[in-house]
C-alpha cells in the first residue's frame, strides 16, 4: 500500500530486462568460422590485480604471437578477457560465463589457490579446460586443469634442498594465513624432520596484514639460520621493510621467499630485500634463447621498464602449450586436446618443459636465485634437469602422511 506502484513495475521490468539481455555469446552464427575464442580470466581489480594483470599481459602477448604466426588450425585466436575481481565466487561466475555463454575453447586464468578451487568444479561440471599458471600447494590433479606453474616438489622441496646444502639447520616459518602457506609448511616440517633440520617457529598473519614488529621480534628471539617465507602480496612489503629496519641482514638470516618475484621486488624496495634468496623456475635473467626473445617481446609490447616473472612466463607458456596440443589434436575439442597434450615438450624461456600426461603438470627445472641490487634475480642454484611433477609427493618417503587423496 505504501509501495509506489511504479516501483513494483520497475522491479518487474528489471527482472524482465535481465531476462531479455541478449546472451552475447549465443550468436554462434555470427561467429566467423576462422576464429577460436579463448578465455582469459584474472583479477583486473582488487588486491590481486597487482600480480594478475601482468599474467594477463603475458597471455595476451602469447595469443598475439600465435596469431602473427598464422593462428591455430588456420584460425585466429580471439581472447575474451574477464575480471575475477580478486573475489573467488566471481571467478566461478565468470568461468561459467566464459564456458556457457562465450563458449570458449579453453580458459587461461587464476592466481590464488582459492580462485582455482572455486573454478575447479565449474570446469569439471562443464567438461571444459583451465590452464592455471601459478606455483601452488599441490595435492590436486583435476582432469580439467593443466598446471603450468610449479607444484611443491618443483619449488618448496628444492628450496629446502638448497637451504640444507647451505648448512641452514634451524628454520623459522612465516606465512600468510591461507591454504598454500599452511600446506607448504606441513611439507617443510615433514622434510625437516626427515633431514635433521629444526623448525623453531611457525607463524601466520592475516592476508593484507602490515604490522610485523611483533613477528620480527619473535623471529629474532628464536634466532634461526634461515626463514622460509610464504607471505603473500602486500604483507611481503611490510615484512621485509620491518625486518630490514630491525637490523636483520640477508647474510645473517636469509629469508627464502616463494611468492616474491621480479614484479614484487619493486614494491618492496630493492634495499630491503637485496641478498635474500627466492625459489622459482624462471627469472628474467634465465639464460635461454627463448627467454631472450620473450623478454624482448614483452618489453616491446608493454614498456622497457617492465620486468618478467615466473607466473607471467608460466601463463605465457600455457597459451603456447595449449596451441601446440590443439595443433597436434587437430581440434579444440577438450578430450582430444587433453590426450594430445601428454608428452608435448617445448623449449620455453625457463628451459625445456614437458607436459606430464598423467597429472597434467609440467616437468620443470627448479632454480634458486638471489635478489640483486638492481632488482633482478640472479640464479645461484638449479636442479640440473627438469623435475618430474609429483603433486601428491608420492616419490618422497618422508611425505607419507601428507599426501593421501
Amino acid at each position, binding site marked *: 500500500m505504501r509501495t509506489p506502484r511504479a516501483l513494483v*513495475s520497475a522491479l518487474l521490468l528489471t527482472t*524482465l530486462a535481465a531476462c531479455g539481455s541478449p546472451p552475447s555469446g*549465443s550468436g554462434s552464427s555470427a561467429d566467423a568460422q576462422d576464429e577460436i575464442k579463448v578465455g582469459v580470466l584474472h583479477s583486473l581489480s582488487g588486491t590481486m590485480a597487482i600480480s594478475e594483470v601482468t599474467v594477463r599481459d603475458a597471455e595476451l602477448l602469447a595469443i598475439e604471437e600465435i596469431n602473427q604466426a598464422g593462428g591455430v588450425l588456420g584460425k585466429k585466436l580471439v581472447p575474451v578477457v574477464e575480471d575475477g575481481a580478486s573475489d573467488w565466487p566471481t571467478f566461478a561466475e565468470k568461468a561459467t560465463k566464459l564456458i556457457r555463454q562465450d563458449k570458449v575453447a579453453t580458459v587461461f586464468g587464476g592466481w590464488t589457490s582459492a580462485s582455482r578451487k572455486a573454478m575447479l568444479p565449474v570446469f569439471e561440471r562443464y567438461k571444459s579446460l583451465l590452464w592455471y599458471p601459478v606455483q601452488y600447494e599441490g595435492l590436486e590433479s583435476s582432469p580439467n586443469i593443466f598446471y603450468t606453474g610449479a607444484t611443491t616438489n618443483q619449488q618448496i622441496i628444492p628450496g629446502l634442498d638448497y637451504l640444507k646444502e647451505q648448512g641452514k639447520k634451524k628454520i623459522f616459518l612465516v606465512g600468510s594465513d591461507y591454504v598454500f602457506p599452511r600446506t607448504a609448511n606441513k611439507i617443510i616440517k615433514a622434510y625437516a624432520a626427515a633431514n635433521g633440520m629444526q623448525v623453531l617457529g611457525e607463524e601466520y598473519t592475516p592476508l593484507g596484514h602490515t604490522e610485523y614488529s611483533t613477528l620480527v621480534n619473535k623471529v629474532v628471539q628464536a634466532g634461526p639460520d634461515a626463514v622460509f617465507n610464504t607471505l603473500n602480496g602486500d604483507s611481503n612489503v611490510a615484512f621485509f621493510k620491518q625486518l630490514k629496519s630491525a637490523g636483520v641482514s640477508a647474510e645473517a638470516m636469509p629469508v627464502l621467499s616463494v611468492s616474491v618475484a621480479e614484479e614484487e621486488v619493486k614494491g618492496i624496495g630493492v634495499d630491503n630485500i637485496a641478498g635474500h634468496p627466492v625459489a622459482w623456475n624462471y627469472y628474467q635473467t634465465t639464460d635461454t634463447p627463448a627467454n631472450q626473445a620473450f623478454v624482448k617481446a614483452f618489453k616491446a609490447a608493454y614498456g622497457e621498464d617492465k620486468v618478467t616473472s615466473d607466473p607471467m612466463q608460466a601463463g605465457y607458456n600455457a597459451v603456447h602449450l595449449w596451441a601446440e596440443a590443439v595443433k597436434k589434436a587437430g581440434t579444440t575439442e577438450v578430450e582430444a586436446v587433453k590426450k594430445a597434450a601428454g608428452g608435448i615438450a617445448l623449449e620455453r624461456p625457463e628451459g625445456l618443459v614437458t607436459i606430464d600426461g598423467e597429472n597434467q603438470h609440467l616437468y620443470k627445472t627448479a632454480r634458486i636465485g638471489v635478489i640483486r641490487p638492481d632488482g633482478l634475480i640472479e640464479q645461484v642454484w638449479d636442479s640440473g634437469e627438469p623435475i618430474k611433477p609429483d603433486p601428491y609427493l608420492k616419490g618422497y618417503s618422508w611425505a607419507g602422511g601428507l599426501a593421501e587423496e
Partner: protein
Amino acid sequence: MIKRNLPFAAIAVIALVAAPLLLEPFRLSLLAKYLCYAIVALGIGLAWGQGGMLTLGQGVFFGLGGYAMAMYLKLSESGGGLPDFMVWSGVEELPALWAPFANPVFALTMAVAGPVLLAVVLGTLVFRQRVRGAYFAILTQALAAAMVILLVGQQGLTGGTNGMTNFFELFGADLADDSTQRVLYLVVAGVLGVLYLATRQLVNSRFGRLLVAVRDGEDRVRFLGYDPALVKTVTFAVSAGLAGLAGALFVPVVGIISPALLGVVPSLELVVAVAVGGRQVLAGAVLGAVVMGYAQTTFSEQFANGWLYLQGALFILVMTLAPKGIAGILGRLRRARTA
C-alpha cells in the same frame, strides 16, 4: 488494497514463470543470485531504512547461513566422512562442531538461528549501552572484519580463505543440472516473495510504527514506556535471520561460500544497493539489490576497470542528488503525473 496489489502479484507470478522459460540457465542462476542478495537487502531495508540502524556487517550473517548450508552439503556428499578440504588441511577426525550439520533440518535451522543468536547477543550488548548511529555502523563493520579473520584462521574447520566449494547435490538432486537450478530459482524467488510480504506486514504493523519512532526519537520512545534496546535488538535479529536464510539459499545456487563473501566490502556493497534502490521502501531495497547485481555483472563484463568508478560515482550521485534512491525518483514521477 488487495485489489490494487493484484495486478502486480499477477505480473510477479508471470515473471516467476517466464524468467525460467526465457533465460539461459547461466543467466537464470545469476538472477537467482541477485534474488538471494535481495533477501539480505530486505533485512537492511528493515534495519536501516525503517529502524535507522546502519548495519555494515550484514555479510557476517549471510556468511553464517551460507556456511551452515555448506557444511550440510559437504557432509551429505562425503557420507559422514571427512570433507575434501579437511583432508588437505590435515584434519583427521570430523570436528564435533560439524557433526550435527549432517542433519539438514539442523543445518537449515542453524542457518537462521545462528545469525539471529549472534545478532541478539551483539544487539543486546551494544543497544543496551545506547551505542548507536555511527558507532553502531563502525562496530558492525569491525565485526565483519573480525569475522573474516576468524574464518580464515580456522582453516581446518572452515576451509580458510578458499571457503567451501565443489558441491554436487542437494537432497539428491544434481546441482550441475539445469533443471535443478531452475527449481532453485523458483524456490529463491518464492522465498523472497513470502519474506517480502511478511516484512512489509511487519513494517505496516504497530511494531513498524514503533520502529520508525525509535529511529526518529529513541530517547522519546523510552518515555513512552518502551525499551528501545529491545525493539532494535529484535529488528536487528530479524534482519540477521533474513541474511542467514539468504546465505543458505545462495550456496546451492552459486556453489561456493567463502570469507570473501562476508567481509567489509560485500557488506557495504549491499548497503549501497539498498541506498540506490531506495532505503525507505522495502521494494526499493529489493529493486536495488537486483539492479546493482545486474549492473555489476554487466559492467564488469564490459569494462572491468570502470566498475569501481561507476560504483563509487553512482553512490556519490545517489547520496547527494537522490537520497531516497530509485524508489524516491519513481515516487516523485508518479506524483508529478497524478498532479
